[in-house]
């Protein structure tokens, strides 16, 4: 649906659970003529990313979707797409990565692609998935960096819920056709992404060319500049469609919260239920939802946690031998800020393990006692609901 609304010109995808309904629906709509997108059948995710990189290079608005091992298989091409500054948008339907095999949900797949140069945004319900894909094209095409729109496999991908579908006219006005700065054109042959050397140098025609490191710095700066762009696009979206999703990060009952639950993706919604019940019992809890993981909302996190005395991160990923990725990010964001609060890290919901609001409540209540401040745990994560 978002693909149609965004008038995507080229899509390519290889089916993988739980992404399969996306590629099946795209293929069916193209076949029936309801979708005027060129859909390219491929034999693998690596090829799917190669196809959408190439189509983006010739100036076409391009989309793909994958999950888990499929995303892992794309890894090489993810670097290439971001490095070539191609504004591709990809849906990542979050699923655990084998071994051992699991088709169920966690966020280890996209977290494992953190340093490929892609932006990453996480949606908390199905309305936000649709809206974020529309926003993502606008963001990507303004800073020339691809965007991964991540959402929890099964938990969101296979849950039916009411979604407000914006009108085509409104989306057209919000998202005009992609006008690339440079395209590959047979009538005007040029070389893109030529070999670079360690240092800048003059090419055969005497022009000064950048070294590899300058390209890297520019990619980094593009992601940093996307920070404001993501917020701005969300505000513009709200002005047209009446819905804001919080830009870089969102808060729930954080204004006077003493303990903040920090989450990413659909878990944030479950956490708001936990907060409502905790507040009925007089526990001042709130939720901080990370919407953009790359670039990371450092300033927003510090601002949103201004009243918090403790933060507890619940996340569906683990950096083996260290801690959860969000936990590390949060600690790094708070370092040197005024917010000198303990950060507790909980690993939850790996491989589809159900995470219930009452479990989150129990953790928060356990942390609000006398032990809250000694809970720094030397950076060791705790694991929720292990068998």
């Amino acid at each position: 649906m978002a693909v149609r609304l965004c008038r995507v010109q080229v899509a390519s995808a290889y089916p993988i659970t739980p992404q399969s309904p996306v590629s099946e629906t795209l293929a069916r709509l193209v076949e029936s003529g309801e979708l005027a997108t060129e859909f390219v059948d491929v034999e693998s995710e690596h090829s799917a990313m190669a196809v959408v990189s190439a189509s983006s290079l010739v100036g076409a608005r391009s989309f793909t979707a994958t999950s888990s091992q499929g995303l892992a298989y794309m890894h090489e091409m993810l670097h290439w797409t971001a490095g070539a500054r191609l504004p591709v948008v990809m849906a990542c339907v979050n699923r655990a990565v084998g071994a051992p095999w699991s088709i169920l949900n966690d966020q280890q797949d996209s977290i494992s692609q953190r340093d490929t140069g892609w932006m990453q945004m996480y949606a908390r319900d199905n309305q936000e998935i649709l809206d974020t894909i529309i926003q993502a094209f606008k963001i990507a095409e303004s800073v020339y960096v691809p965007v991964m729109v991540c959402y929890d496999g099964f938990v969101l991908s296979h849950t039916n819920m009411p979604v407000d579908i914006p009108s085509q006219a409104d989306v057209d006005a919000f998202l005009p056709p992609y006008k690339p700065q440079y395209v590959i054109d047979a009538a005007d042959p040029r070389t893109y992404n030529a070999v670079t050397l360690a240092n800048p140098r003059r090419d055969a025609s005497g022009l000064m060319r950048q070294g590899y490191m300058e390209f890297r710095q520019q990619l980094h700066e593009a992601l940093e500049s996307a920070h404001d762009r993501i917020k701005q696009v969300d505000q513009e979206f709200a002005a047209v469609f009446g819905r804001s999703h919080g830009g870089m990060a969102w808060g729930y009952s954080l204004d006077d919260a003493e303990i903040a639950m920090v989450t990413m993706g659909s878990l944030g919604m479950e956490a708001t239920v936990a907060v409502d019940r905790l507040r009925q019992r007089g526990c001042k809890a709130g939720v901080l939802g990370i919407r953009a993981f790359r670039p990371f909302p450092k300033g927003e996190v510090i601002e949103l946690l201004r009243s918090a005395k403790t933060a507890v991160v619940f996340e569906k990923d683990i950096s083996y031998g260290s801690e959860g990725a969000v936990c590390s990010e949060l600690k790094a964001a708070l370092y040197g800020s005024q917010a000198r609060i303990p950060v507790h890290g909980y690993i939850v919901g790996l491989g589809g393990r159900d995470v219930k609001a009452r479990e989150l409540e129990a953790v928060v209540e356990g942390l609000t006692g006398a032990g809250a401040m000694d809970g720094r745990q030397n950076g060791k994560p705790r694991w929720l609901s292990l068998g």
Partner: protein
Amino acid sequence: MIADRMSKQKVHEIRWHGRGGQGAVTAAHALAEAAFVEGWVGVTSVPAFGAERRGMPVSASTRFSPQVIRTYSQIELPDVVVVLDESLLDDPSVTEGLKRDGWLIVNSALSPERLQVSGDFNIAAVDAARVSAEMGLLSGGSPLVNTAILGAFSRVTGLVSMPSIEAALRRRFNNSASDTNVNAARLTHQRTILNPRSNGETGEPRTGEYLRVSGYCR
């Protein structure tokens, strides 16, 4: 009377149990659509996550609420459990967590009193398979009960009206198939037999049933 008991001011959680191929997942989605048509603000439906094979026990769930639903975790304490295949009642996990004032709705030729079920909840039964067979709603020679039983859900709970269920079914099926499905749901609605808990035994289940269930080891 029964409709009054099931309030429209709260969240309702419905768990579906069937066997692969019986359409429990479709039923969960169709009920969600009907609830949306009915005007419930928050509506979700979802299959139980896992491998599905024809004949294997499968489950699905539907939630609806006057507010937007923010919980996506699995249902622990359902208000209604709908069972498409009564042989599944041997598994205690099917009625696990069903609330005391909740309803168990079973596709069965037996009356609620004669169903071999123990538990402190209300029971309704309807021979939806017979209705579907009469209507010619067959799949691979077996009656397809998943849409017919929506009529029983409406009758028992009053939470989603028959016009809403019919609208959802007409959206889902083309003309002739939608008539058949709608008629099956209507007939099932009429034939459902309700056995509220207060009319039957309350408290401890009968001994024989209790032994039979407790002897079942999961």
